[in-house]
C-alpha cells in the first residue's frame, strides 16, 4: 500500500518514529508512520494499538489502513487516516469559556467511552493528542501507551515511573502504581486539560500555583491553580477539577456515567 502513496511532506520526526503526510490514489491524504522496534515490549505495544484502531471504526479515532512489520530490519510501518484539523494545542482559542470547554469534554468522553468500555485506558491524553476536526469533533490519537486492563501489563513493576507524559500524568502513573490504573487515570488528564483551556496555563505550573516545585512535583502534592491574576475561578470548572484532580482515584468521579452526568449539566 505504501508504494501506492506519494509522500508530500514530513510532519514529525522523533526518537521512536517518523511521520509523513502522503497521498493515496483512492483514499486521499494519509499519514505514514515508520519506526524502529526497539524491544519486545515496544513491538507488543504497537501491535496492541494497531489491533485496537483497526476495530474501533469511529470518528473519534483515526482509521487504520495498513500495518507491516519487517522482522529482519526490526521496523514497522503504519498507514492511517490523515486527520484534517488542528491539534487542540493550536486550537485553544476555540475553547475558552466553560460552556465550550464542557462541550469539548462531552465529545471527548463520548469518544473515550468506546475504549473504556473495552477496559482500555488511554494514559496519554494531552492537547497534542487531540485533533480538532473542522466540524469541532475531537479525534483522539496515539494509543501507543494505552493500558489494556484485560491483558498482561507491559510495564516493568520495578520502573519508578510508568509510561506517560509526566505533566499530564495522574499520580498513580508517576509512581507506577499499576494496580490503580483505570479510567479514573484518564479523568485526571481531562481535569488538567479542562483547567488548562480555561486558564490558558498549565494548572500545576509553579508560576501559577505560587511555589518553586516542578509541575510533576505539584501533581504529586496535589497543588494546582484554579485562577490566575487575570482569570477568576469558575465554580463549574472548580467542581470538575475537584472531582478529577485528586491524588486518590476514589476521590475522583467513579465512572464515566457519573463524569458524563456532571458534564451534561453545563453544556
Amino acid at each position, binding site marked *: 500500500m505504501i508504494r501506492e502513496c506519494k509522500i508530500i511532506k514530513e510532519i514529525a520526526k522523533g526518537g521512536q518514529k517518523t511521520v509523513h503526510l502522503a497521498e493515496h490514489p483512492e483514499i486521499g491524504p494519509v499519514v505514514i508512520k515508520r519506526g524502529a522496534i526497539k524491544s519486545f515490549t515496544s513491538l507488543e505495544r504497537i501491535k496492541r494499538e494497531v489491533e485496537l484502531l483497526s476495530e474501533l471504526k469511529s470518528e473519534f479515532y483515526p482509521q487504520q489502513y495498513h500495518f507491516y512489520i519487517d522482522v529482519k530490519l526490526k521496523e514497522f510501518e503504519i498507514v492511517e487516516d490523515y486527520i484534517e484539523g488542528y491539534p487542540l494545542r493550536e486550537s485553544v482559542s476555540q475553547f475558552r469559556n466553560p460552556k465550550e470547554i464542557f462541550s469539548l469534554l462531552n465529545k471527548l468522553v463520548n469518544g473515550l467511552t468506546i475504549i473504556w468500555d473495552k477496559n482500555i485506558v488511554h494514559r496519554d491524553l494531552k492537547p497534542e493528542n487531540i485533533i480538532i476536526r473542522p466540524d469541532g469533533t475531537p479525534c483522539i490519537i496515539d494509543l501507543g501507551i494505552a493500558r489494556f486492563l484485560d491483558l498482561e501489563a507491559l510495564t516493568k513493576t520495578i520502573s519508578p515511573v510508568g509510561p506517560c507524559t509526566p505533566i499530564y500524568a495522574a499520580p498513580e502513573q508517576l509512581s507506577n502504581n499499576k*494496580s*490503580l490504573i483505570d479510567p*479514573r487515570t484518564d479523568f485526571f488528564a481531562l481535569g488538567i486539560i479542562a483547567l488548562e483551556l480555561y486558564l490558558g496555563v498549565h494548572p500545576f505550573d509553579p508560576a501559577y500555583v505560587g511555589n518553586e516545585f516542578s509541575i510533576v512535583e505539584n501533581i504529586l502534592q496535589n497543588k494546582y491553580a484554579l485562577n490566575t491574576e487575570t482569570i477568576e475561578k469558575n465554580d463549574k470548572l472548580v467542581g470538575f477539577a475537584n472531582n478529577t484532580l485528586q491524588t*486518590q482515584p*476514589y*476521590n475522583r468521579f*467513579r465512572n464515566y456515567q457519573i463524569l458524563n452526568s456532571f458534564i451534561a449539566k453545563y453544556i
Partner: protein
Amino acid sequence: MNVYHQTGFRDKWNMECFQKGIGDGLIFSPINIDSDKLLGLNGTLKETGFLDPQLYLLNEAKGTLDSYPYFPGNLKPDFTTPDLDNSHIQLAQLCVDYQMANNFQYLVIPTRYYTDNPTSYFAQSSDYFVTPFCDFVKYNKFKKKILLSVIVKTIMLSDEEKRNEVLNWITGHQHIAGVYLIFENNFASKQIKDFDYLLNVLRFIKVLKDNHMEVHLGYTNTEALLYSIALPDSITIGSYENLRSFGIKRFRDLENSPMRSPNARLYSSNLLQWIDYEYIQAMKSLIPDYANYFDDSEYKPLMFKPDFKWHFAKPEPYKHYFTVFYEQIKSLPISQEDRIIDLKGKIKNALSIFKTIENYILLDDDSDGSHLPTWFNVINAFQKELN
C-alpha cells in the same frame, strides 16, 4: 434507610417478624439454612433480601454450607487456594446461578477472610471472584444489581495506606452497584467505645456514598444508629450477639473455646443500650416506674411478668429488639443534618436517664451508657468534617 434481618441460628424468629412487617428484607446465611430449604422458601421472603455467600474460609464446611452448589469442596475434595486458578469461573457461575434461582433483590460477590490479608489479596479477589462473577452476569444479561462483599478489618480503617488501597479497589469496579460491608469487630466490650474506629467507619461510608455507591452494612448492633448519620442504604438487625458483631469464629467448623451462655439482655430505645436482665430485676424493686424506660411491644407484657424466666435463648427479647430498633431506625429524619441533631438529642436524653437510674442502682460498663459520650463526640467530629 432499609433494615435487613441478619439471619443465622433461629432464623425462624427473623422470618416471623419480617412477615409481620418488621424489617425490609432478609440476609440469608448458608451455614444456617440448607440450600434446598432456602430454594423452597416463599419468594416474598427472598425478593427483598440477598444471600451472604459465606465463602470466607473457602473450604470450611460449617453447618449446611456444603449443601450449596458453589461450595468449593463440592467442586473438588480438599479444595485449596491454588485450585481457584482452574475453578474460579465455574465457582462464580454456580454462585450467580444459585442466587438467580432464588430471585433475591441483589447478586452478592463473595469474599474471603484472612487473619492478615496477603499483599496479593485485592488482585486475587478481583481475579477469582469479582471479574468472573461480573463477566457471567454481563454475559447472561442479568439485570439485578451486584453488591461486592467486603470485610473491613480494623487496620483498613486506621492505616491510611491500607484505607486508600481498599477504597481504590472497591470504587475501581465499574459494574457493581454497591457494597455489602462487614466491619470486623475485635472489641471485647459489647458496645464499641473507640472514638477513632467509629469516626473512621463514618468516613469510610461517606467516601463510598460520595462515589454514588449503595452501602449496605452487615452485622451491625446499636451503633447502626450512629452509622446512620453517614447515610448508608441499609443496616442490619440480628438476634444473637454473633449476628450483631462480625467474628470469623462463627464460620469455623470447630470453634476453639466452649460456648459460654451470655446473660439475657433487653434493648431500650430510650437508653440506646441493651440492659442485662439482672439489672432489670434490680430496677424493678428499686425504681417505681422502671418499666417506662423500656419500649412497649407485643413481647413486653410477657417479659415483665413476675414469673418470666429470662434466658438468652428465648425469642422475646430479640423479637422485641427487632420491633423497637426497626421503628427507631425508621423514625430517623431523612436529611443528614436533621438526623445528626436528632441523634445528639437522643444521646443526651439517654445519658440523663442513666443518671437517674444510677441514683438507685449501679450498672456495669456493658449495661451503662459509657459508649454514649464517645458516640456524641464522634458525631461532633464527623459533623465538623462535613462543614
